[in-house]
């Protein structure tokens, strides 16, 4: 009930903990981890095509989505990020042949575990974006940003000092 009232007043309320709130103009921080060959190249194409998307994402470059350790996701959520987007090559297109297939298994288990432990499932999202899919990258970022805005601030541990 209380949550509803707060929301009605325009306050952003965390989906995980109703006690955590933020002002209406709050902007989430999203950690983006992109593979070098497809998604990072795709995001570069978004830039060269001047396709506009929300500015909330902070991008880290890794060689392959298989380099992404679930730690990175957990660490991001634990520190500054309100959400995480991981993106790699489409299945079958992996520059390193099979990396994204291994990554895909880990991502599913990680996502489900995080959800089980009390993170909204939309906090962590995954996408396949090829080097040619500049518009798709913009769309994905817009969607993820919008999803995470809906979820409100995450910073359950923000007070903690790292």
């Amino acid at each position, binding site marked *: 009930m209380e949550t509803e009232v707060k929301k009605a007043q325009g306050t952003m309320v965390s989906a995980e903990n109703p006690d955590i709130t933020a002002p209406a103009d709050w902007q989430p921080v999203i950690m983006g981890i992109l593979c070098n060959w497809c998604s990072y190249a795709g995001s570069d194409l978004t830039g060269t095509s001047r396709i506009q998307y929300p500015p909330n994402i902070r991008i880290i470059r890794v060689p392959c989505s298989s380099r992404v350790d679930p730690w990175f996701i957990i660490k991001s959520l634990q520190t500054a990020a309100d959400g995480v987007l991981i993106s790699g090559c489409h299945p079958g297109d992996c520059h390193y042949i099979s990396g994204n297939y291994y990554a*895909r298994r880990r991502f599913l288990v990680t996502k489900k575990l995080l959800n089980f432990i009390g993170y909204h499932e939309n906090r962590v999202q995954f996408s396949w974006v090829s080097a040619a899919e500049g518009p798709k990258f913009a769309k994905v970022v817009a969607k993820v940003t919008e999803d995470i805005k809906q979820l409100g601030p995450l910073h359950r541990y923000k007070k903690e000092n790292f």
Partner: protein
Amino acid sequence: MDHSKQIQEIASRLFAENKIDYFVGYRQNSFDDTQVPFLITDPAEIPKLVFTERSVFNLSNYLKPDHTKRKRVGLVVKGCDSRALNLMLTESQVKRENVYIIGICCEGVLNEKGEKAQNCVECVMPDPVVYDEILGTASGKREYIVNADIKELAQKALTERADYFENIFENCIRCNACRHSCPLCYCAKCCIDQETSTLYHGANTSSAGMHALMTWSLHLAGRCVDCRNCEKACPSHLPLHLLHKQNEMVIYENFQQHLAGMEKDDRGAFYKYSLSDPDDFIL
């Protein structure tokens, strides 16, 4: 389920034939009716060996140290223990020729309250999957059951679950007993060590325990055999099985009904893939 006599006979025979240097089994605790792991080198101690439904611990864990690794060891394993041992063999942690495995067709062990333990109620494989000698009657593989606690928690609201885990994992004292008691945690450097987890999870914060344990559970995902040694070892009585069983469930449901350690040379769900793995959660 009392195989004490048979185990004593086998142990004497193995020592007599000079087939082993150590024997690892169970012994009665001196102050109550529980049992403790019991490692013997002297055949004179054989009469102390017991095996009943109180023999709860996974003895595969005692093959981890270097000194047992290099010696010939006789070992008692239940269904779940043998799956862990199977993985240790696959992951080259134990040499097959160095272990003499006495497999028990397990009828389930008891928890502290004297009831049949939850992991035994939900057990998928009570029979040993790797052994030199087998005791009891095999009852075969059973159907996979989703853990009762997970079912219950999954029905709760997200906020409730978040609250529950936050409160419960705050009690982690970072003693690493869970890691030490797990037969599959043999890494020289571990993600839950203070030293590494300072980097990864923040050293002295309330959430550090939870995030470290989550990472740890992901290292065991697709490998954990649900023996619950970790939970038995935890001084804070954290429900660690929730993490492991959650991962096990997701893996079972999505990756060709994979269960850890069931087959020889199966390395676990994260070390293989299928082209038909679920892809619908990816944008």
